[in-house]
């Protein structure tokens, strides 16, 4: 079956789901892709479906299928179900487009679709619904720590658009020769730098991290999808796609920025009070690790993508279950099923399940630091909350994902990674205030950048107003010119119709008063006599 048709069908599923509001299109599309991923191939040169792409398509489809089934139950509490399902399908279809695109414009279409769908999904809850808010509302460090869906959506789209603008230019430069990515040659330094900016913004790497935290305004299934297999994963996947074209220094930069974000996200996650924000910080942290290795060790990065995807989707769905049960975004009681699933997810992240083992197969030992931090913050969710018994249908999709995803590959874990679980003790440390405040990064986006932009805008407004007023003052010039012309006109008029005829008249009258004709007569007669006398003398 042609891949192009399947992708088109995935986009069309959005229209179906907007109409039926039940995720029928989502489940159908995800199932079709999961079943046909090995039987399908592109009918045109616009797409490429190699082994890695097929693996990613299967991975994204299975995660989406699981989350869609989960959402059938979860979305009952969502008022705008058509909106939710429509954007979810666009999200999924855009990710597939991005993964499989070989034509640069299609890559951008997929990339842009992800930006757009994430923006739409963050807006799912109404402004006044508490479920759509992030932050507890206190004022600190010059800002109010509360973000409504519209504020979160705007923050998200504006941050990632920096990356999208960078990607447009980078790929535009590369596409000058040929539009097919597989035929591109090495990227120049400037283009490579822009690709890094694009990947960092999408993957919420420093300093672009904070949009990911406030994106928690979206319903939990959205977070599960956005953090596990779509959107943020597009950042490192871009680096994997373009890796062979990137200069050597880019790997060093990606490594440093990735590690810095991994450390930042891990530490910040330890101090968060809202479980979804905690998991968002964790995502930033793991995306940091994946970004760090995307150019240095693509195989490890790819397995980290799989392992983190399965674990993070599980964690979000489990937390979502607790939110659903408690009707509160900071639940104190977690269903037993969710705690079991979170424990399995933690084991995968630490590296002691078969899937986790593959992700850790080539890992250096110093990565245990991040596993320890993971144990600390996931431990807070498991150990520092009450347990209730709720085996509603919400539990089954994520339990299945945790079990099948983590144990469906054959690999022998190195149980020494299990020592990272000592980090569970971090769950009992009191959260540090500065870490809770995300080391002040929101201040950059909510105070400093807006202030700088407003200063620039005020300057432009003042300049424009000044020039605009000058334009209106041109009317004064016009009036002066008009008055000048009127004066000239009046004097010319007076000259032509007044002064000159009057002068002629006066001269004429004056001449007539002097009896000029008499003198002329005398002069004529005199002249005749003189002429006669002259001639007479001459002849004689």
């Amino acid at each position, binding site marked *: 079956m042609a891949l192009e048709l399947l992708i088109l069908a995935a986009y069309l599923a959005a229209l179906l789901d907007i109409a039926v509001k039940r995720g029928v299109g989502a489940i159908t599309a995800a199932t079709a892709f999961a079943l046909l991923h090995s039987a399908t191939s592109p009918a045109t040169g*616009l797409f490429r479906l190699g082994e890695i792409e097929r693996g990613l398509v299967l991975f994204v489809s299975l995660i989406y299928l699981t989350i869609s089934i989960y959402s059938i139950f979860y979305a009952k509490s969502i008022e705008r179900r058509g909106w939710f399902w429509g954007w979810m399908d666009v999200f999924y279809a855009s990710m597939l487009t991005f993964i499989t695109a070989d034509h*640069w*414009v299609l890559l*951008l*279409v997929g990339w*842009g*679709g992800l*930006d*757009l769908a994430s*923006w*739409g999904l963050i*807006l799912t809850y109404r*402004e006044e619904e508490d479920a759509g808010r992030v932050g507890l509302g206190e004022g600190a460090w010059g800002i109010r720590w509360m973000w409504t869906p*519209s504020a979160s*959506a*705007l923050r998200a*789209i*504006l941050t990632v*658009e*920096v990356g*999208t*603008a*960078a990607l*447009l*230019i980078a*790929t*535009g*430069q590369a*596409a*000058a020769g040929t539009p097919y990515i597989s035929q591109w040659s090495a990227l*120049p330094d*400037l283009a490579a730098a*822009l690709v890094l900016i694009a990947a960092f913004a999408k993957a919420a790497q420093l300093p672009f991290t904070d949009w990911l935290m406030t994106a928690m305004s979206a319903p939990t299934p959205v977070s599960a999808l956005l953090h596990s297999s779509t959107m943020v994963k597009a950042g490192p996947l871009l680096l994997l796609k373009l890796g062979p074209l990137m200069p050597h220094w880019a790997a060093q930069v990606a490594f440093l920025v990735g590690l810095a974000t991994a450390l930042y996200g891990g530490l910040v996650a330890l101090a968060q009070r809202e479980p979804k924000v905690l998991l968002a910080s964790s995502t930033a942290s793991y995306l940091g690790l994946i970004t760090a290795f995307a150019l240095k060790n693509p195989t490890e990065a790819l397995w980290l993508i799989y392992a983190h995807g399965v674990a993070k989707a599980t964690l979000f769905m489990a937390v979502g279950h607790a939110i659903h049960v408690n009707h509160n975004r900071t639940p104190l009681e977690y269903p037993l099923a969710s705690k079991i699933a979170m424990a399995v997810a933690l084991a995968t992240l630490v590296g002691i399940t078969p899937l986790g083992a593959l992700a850790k197969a080539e890992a250096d030992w110093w990565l245990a630091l991040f596993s320890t931090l993971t144990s600390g913050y996931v431990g807070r969710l498991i150990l520092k909350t009450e347990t209730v018994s709720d085996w509603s249908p919400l539990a089954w999709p994520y339990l299945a994902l945790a079990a099948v995803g983590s144990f469906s590959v054959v690999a022998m874990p190195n149980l020494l990674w299990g020592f990272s679980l000592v980090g569970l003790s971090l769950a009992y440390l009191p959260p540090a205030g500065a870490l809770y405040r995300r080391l002040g990064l929101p201040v950059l986006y909510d105070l400093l950048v807006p202030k700088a932009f407003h200063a*620039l*805008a005020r300057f*432009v*407004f003042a300049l*424009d107003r000044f*020039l*605009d007023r000058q*334009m209106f003052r041109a009317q004064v010039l016009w009036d002066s010119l008009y008055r000048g012309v009127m004066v000239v006109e009046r004097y010319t008029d007076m000259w032509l119709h007044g002064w000159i005829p009057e002068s002629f008249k006066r001269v004429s009258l004056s001449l007539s008063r002097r009896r000029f004709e008499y003198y002329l007569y005398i002069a004529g007669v005199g002249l005749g006599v003189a002429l006669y006398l002259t001639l007479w003398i001459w002849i004689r």
Partner: protein
Amino acid sequence: MYSDIFLAVTALIVALSLLSAKRGVLSAAVATALMVGYLLISQRTTLASMPYVGEVAVLVDLHKLPFIAVSIALGLLVTLYAPRYLEHLKAERWYYLSHVLYVLSFVFIVIFENLIFVFLALELSIITSFLLIWYFGYGNRRMVGLIYFIWAQVGSILFLIGVAASGHFDASTFQATGLASLLVLLGILIKMGTLGVHFWLPYAHAEAPTPLSALLSPVHVGLLAYWLWRLKDGAMWPVEVLYMYGLATAIYGSILVFREVDIKRALADSTIANMGLLVSAASLGGELGYLTMAILFTGHAFAKAAGFMLSGIYIVHIHTRLLDQLKWNTPLLTVGILTFVALSGVFGLTLVGKAFLAIGVPHDAAAVLLLLFALFSTALYNFYLINRIYRSGPAEVNASSDMYIPTLLSALLPYVLLALLPLLWR
């Protein structure tokens, strides 16, 4: 044969436009639809040969086709949209006469090969639109009408003087140097409303009656980009400087949006930004420049028309243009999102246009940085606007279907065309 077609179609359109002054929308719509007849003129056809002016030829080649097709399509959509709005304005039916001739002027601006006749077409567009602003505009409409008329005349006349001074009146052989070249460029830029000569644009486009705004902003000013692209080789304009100037215009126009409280003025400022992108696109060399310009023009035209038509729906149904009072229901929010996302270039046809614009960026860090800021700022203000409208909150707004359907179609077209782009390319 083609000259006969031209004359017959023109005669029919003029007759129907006169009839529309009596009969109203139906005649106007038929007259506008008949403009499709011009698309048959696929070969250069000489209508007349005049002393001093030279050959007066018309042509619709593949390069002109998108501009003419978009003009006609939007002309028709806006004609169908207009009746209820005109009822709201209590406008007389002669509005349609001027409206049809205005749309006709778009076709003429592009179809003529003789630049003196392009000037005449520009004059037709100025006079018809000026009349509509003067009689049916908002606010201090006579003052605004005069501002518009004077600036538009200055632009057209500079264009004419430049062309006349060049001594080359036919576009296919156009060459100009020195002052003549500069005057043609200045004339075009004033007509487009780019940075430094943009002051008239927000007044005119915001205070015009909304069906006129929905043509003035999306089509009229953008059509001049075609001539910028077409004449640039003969006029030897400094294209790299123009590219950067276009980007600076895009940034400046984007920032201006943030001062507005009125959706129509915000859309007008957005037009300045988009004219900047078009100038940059038109200054790119060869087919790349053409493709970029045609895609950006088309994407902007439909989305901007939808934006203005949406503002018209608000004016008619809830009697406000203030951004913070534009409450929405699902259909209106759908159009709003489709419009502003398409304008932003995050998705839709403009995304491809922006990507193509990036191919031609000069390879130096300053140009790349300027382009980065231009691409970002043109996305930024659109999400700012939709966010502001969204925060106004939901309400029951019963938009009439005769206004809503043309608006929705216009808003959808940038996405439909994106999907069809591979086929159109072929």
